[in-house]
């Protein structure tokens, strides 16, 4: 028995800011203090509050230390762990109250959340199957194999109302039912997991894999039993080395404990899982492309039908679900379909994990019941926008999604509402933008992404997105015309209607949604030749206010293009022909004399 547990986040965010060194130092210091039999250090998955990493929690008291540095460790050990005195300067300030320390669960960041898929993230060690079993892990698999028929399993998932969390929102139970029944007497079926999380700015799936890998394995085995498959594949991005490593450990442990392999729980059910690494192609997140890639080919999509449920991997009936979808399955089996469907809105049940990023105070991972408003997510959970800036838009759905402007701040987030306002749920990236972000530039940014990632198989996507990008580029350079705006819209609909797969069909969404809500910004670029947010360099002009300039010469010395001239103590001027618009002068000026417009 340990008297105390110290949990340190080993997710990617915290690891990037040195949490592994913190763990090593902590273990060393604890040993030096002779406490190694009293205090255990646990490396967990993501706590969610990535903005404050590296994060450490000391139990049983639940003290939440944030932004811990390696040099703080000796003090934490000698003060807190030895003497029982909390190191108050490192405690997360939201948990500090007049009467002492309040629970993390009561802070604004956590109190509105409901962790189902992330239940174990930041709680257990992902590299130890016994900790997973200790929190009820593999119980659902046991229940399914010993007490339920495959049809009962599928009915439970159908009744729960669970929809695909990868973005499409297709009912999961329906997928399973099709795969079970569509090809009678199939000799081989497959269960696949889509862990090719390619949306830039989305890291929900990686956090589940890093923090709770066994939940995915358990759910895949349940799916295997339900549809009649005995082989699974997880297709995971090679860019996620920590997730890959923990999955490897988890699969080996599960085999060792008899949770995978032959004759699971002595029921005669066989199921095993193989790992396949992606190689950096966004299109492989599309289901048919993913399967072609597992087969060892160029990851190009193919037309549907036939759907994977009928003809999928290696031509056999296959189901493919996303990581977060799987993470919900064992809880649904154990707690029942009604428990799950009691959360959320009429057509979107349960919770959704979002990766909050961009211009927001609490960047990190949050799980909220469907139907929570954007305002709650950004203002209350996310802590609002830093530096007193104004909210402009939130981007969901990555390169396939759209922007949600301030006028829809109070819309309850669910699949259908987001589609009705021209965005989509997507896999869960939620990037907040403030007044300093140019919406034309953002649309161009996403198009550059799709141009780069288009696989080239079908013409509307390969050539259409490129032409679309060129027109946007023209606009950001101040060379666009109003006619271009009409052409852009026409081309958008053409690409949407004629592309082969989801990548092309959704690629124009960022353009259409910014055109819908921020048309005035496009007009400003085209007609007035200005960028209201001050982002598009070709449209910017830096100038010095002669009344404010003291002639200190600092800007002239800093300018890399020698574009600023003037004599000491006299107002300086910028030569617009030489200016490269880097903004160095504006940052240097101590008197606020330089402005851009």
């Amino acid at each position: 028995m340990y008297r105390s547990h110290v949990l340190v986040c080993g997710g990617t965010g915290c690891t990037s800011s040195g949490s592994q060194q913190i763990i090593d130092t902590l273990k060393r210091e604890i040993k030096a203090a002779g406490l190694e039999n009293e205090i255990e250090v646990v490396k967990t998955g993501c706590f969610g509050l990535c903005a404050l990493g590296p994060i450490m929690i000391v139990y049983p008291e639940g003290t939440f230390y944030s932004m811990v540095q390696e040099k703080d460790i000796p003090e934490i050990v000698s003060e807190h762990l030895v003497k029982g005195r909390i190191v108050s300067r490192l405690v997360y300030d939201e948990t500090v109250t007049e009467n002492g320390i309040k629970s993390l669960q009561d802070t604004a960041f956590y109190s509105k959340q409901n962790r189902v898929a992330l239940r174990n993230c930041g709680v257990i060690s992902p590299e130890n199957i016994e900790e997973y079993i200790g929190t009820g892990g593999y119980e659902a698999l046991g229940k399914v194999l010993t007490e339920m028929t495959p049809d009962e399993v599928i009915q439970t998932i159908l009744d729960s109302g669970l929809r695909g969390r990868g973005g499409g929102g297709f009912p999961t139970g329906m997928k399973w039912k099709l795969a079970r029944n569509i090809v009678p007497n199939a000799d081989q079926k497959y269960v696949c997991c889509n862990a090719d999380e390619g949306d830039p700015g989305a890291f929900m799936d990686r956090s589940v894999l890093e923090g709770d890998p066994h939940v995915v394995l358990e759910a895949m085995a349940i799916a295997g039993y339900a549809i009649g498959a005995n082989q699974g594949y997880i297709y995971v991005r090679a860019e996620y080395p920590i997730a890959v490593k923990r999955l490897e450990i988890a699969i080996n442990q599960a085999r060792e404990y008899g949770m995978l392999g032959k004759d699971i729980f002595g029921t005669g059910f066989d199921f095993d899982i193989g790992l396949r690494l992606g190689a950096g192609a966004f299109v492989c997140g599309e289901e048919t492309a993913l399967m072609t890639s597992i087969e060892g080919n160029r990851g190009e999509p193919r037309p549907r039908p036939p759907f994977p449920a009928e003809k999928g991997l290696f031509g056999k009936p296959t189901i493919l679900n996303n990581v977060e979808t799987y993470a919900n399955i064992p809880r649904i089996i154990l707690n029942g379909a009604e428990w799950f469907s009691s959360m959320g809105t009429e057509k979107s049940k349960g919770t959704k994990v979002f990766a909050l990023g961009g211009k927001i105070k609490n960047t990190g991972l949050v799980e909220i019941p469907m139907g929570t408003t954007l305002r709650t997510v950004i203002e209350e959970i996310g802590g609002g926008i830093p530096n007193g800036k104004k909210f402009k838009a939130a981007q969901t759905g990555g390169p396939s999604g759209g922007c949600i402007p301030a006028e829809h701040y109070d819309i309850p987030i669910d699949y259908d509402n987001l589609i009705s306002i021209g965005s989509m749920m997507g896999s869960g990236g939620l990037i907040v933008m403030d007044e300093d972000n140019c919406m034309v530039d953002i649309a161009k940014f996403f198009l550059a992404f799709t141009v780069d990632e288009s696989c080239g198989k079908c013409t509307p996507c390969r050539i259409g997105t490129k032409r679309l990008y060129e027109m946007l580029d023209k606009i950001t350079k101040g060379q666009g015309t109003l006619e271009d705006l009409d052409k852009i819209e026409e081309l958008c609909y053409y690409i949407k209607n004629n592309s082969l797969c989801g990548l092309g069909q959704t690629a124009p969404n960022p353009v259409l949604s910014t055109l819908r809500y921020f048309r005035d910004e496009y007009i400003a670029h085209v007609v007035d030749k200005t960028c209201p947010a001050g982002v598009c360099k070709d449209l910017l002009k830096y100038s010095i206010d002669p009344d404010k300039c003291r002639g200190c010469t600092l800007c002239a010395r800093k300018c890399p293009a020698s574009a600023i001239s003037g004599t000491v103590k006299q107002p300086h001027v910028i030569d617009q022909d030489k200016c490269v618009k880097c903004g160095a002068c504006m940052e240097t000026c101590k008197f606020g004399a330089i402005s851009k417009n």
Partner: protein
Amino acid sequence: MAAKTCSIPFAGTAEQEARLKEIIASHKGDKGALMPVLQQAQEIYGYLPIEVQTIIATEMDIPLEKIYGVVTFYSQFSLNPKGKYTISVCLGTACYVKGSGDLFDELSAKLGISGGETTPDGKFSLVDCRCIGACGLAPVLTVNDDVYGRLTVDDLDGILEKYQD
């Protein structure tokens, strides 16, 4: 499209080839083994020149043009050797809205190379990468396995200085 052959002469050793053949043998009978084989081959050689692709084609009995097609499809596979240090600037959305585009442009100017290129002395390669998932630290770049976060353009000189050996 990248040139089929690499301008730098191939310098594979017999030992590397033996390791590659071992790996291919261990995947015998595996369905869809080409991707894992290519990934491990790149770990051995650091890149996948046409000579390595030819070995794989012969050993696995897969047409060379199919292998070349797969290699050029995925951005992870490289036909050219990488520099000693690969600097990857995250151009994912969360980093981009926080200014990673400026970091990339500045590095490109400082190193005198554009994305995907390597400096003539073979020291630095510059690439843009999609989200590495450390969005809480945006904007982020990595140098080989080291991660640097919450960056501004002014931090870049200090980072480059650490890799002068």
